């Protein structure tokens, strides 16, 4: 496996969707290629950071209007 093969499987790899022999080959390449390790680590970090980005609360008055439209009690 070379760097280009790894690049094509980056997302699948960090999503743990690369299995078996292909995964072994990919990890063997990573063990020897610092450039590809940075590729994997920074892409994984990107996904982790976005996964942690906080969400907004539904503002109280927005929820109030929603329940009113739906004819539900809060």
């Amino acid at each position, binding site marked *: 496996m070379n760097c280009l093969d790894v*690049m094509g499987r*980056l*997302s*699948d790899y960090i999503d743990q969707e690369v299995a078996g022999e292909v995964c072994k080959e990919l990890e063997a390449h990573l063990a020897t290629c610092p450039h590809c390790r*940075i*590729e994997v*680590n*920074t*892409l*994984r*970090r*990107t*996904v*982790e*950071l*976005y*996964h*942690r*980005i*906080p*969400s*907004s*609360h*539904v*503002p109280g008055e*927005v*929820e109030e*209007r*929603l*329940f009113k*439209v*739906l*004819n*539900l*009690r*809060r």
Partner: protein
Amino acid sequence: MRDSSKLTDFQLVDLVRGGEQAAYRHLVQRYEGKIYNLALRLLRRPEDAEDVLQETFLSAYRALPNFKGDSQFGTWLYRIATNFALMKLRGKKPVFVSLDEPRDDDQPPVELTDFSADPLADVLDSELRHKMEEAIAKLPEDMRTVFLLRDIEGLSNSEVAEILDLSVAAVKSRLHRTRLQLRRDLARYFSEREAARASRAPRTSKG
């Protein structure tokens, strides 16, 4: 008295179908935050997100008798919300950039700064959060939709494919390209942040 908050979505759906309207309140409370945030990040204007929120839950309530249960209730709801949000978005901005065509910004890989070493909690400050929200907002609609459903809402590739009527392969391909673009933005941000820090650091002088 029954504790409805412990019931599954399917059990609550059955209660609503059986005429217990109050059970719908629990479903709304379970999903309103997710739907509101998705709509807000897709449309950006809070008043538009509120419209989508109301339209989604009204429409889902009316369609509940037809809900087959082939998919999860949440997936079904996201599908309704995404459709409303995209209709609103396209009504305003009809330009649709398809990811299936190569684009100019698909640059060859550049030398990346490794920004993965610092602990997550240390780097995710308000400035970075703002940059990240900006980066999401700048994505073309098709990339943004896939990314929000998959990486922000945490749905699976097959759920996203179902919601957007795409193949799983198309979802994966869009997701991958989006992640690469967002990483490019983050790498740029971290490298500028590092440079700014270095320029502020006191210089050591000889002597």
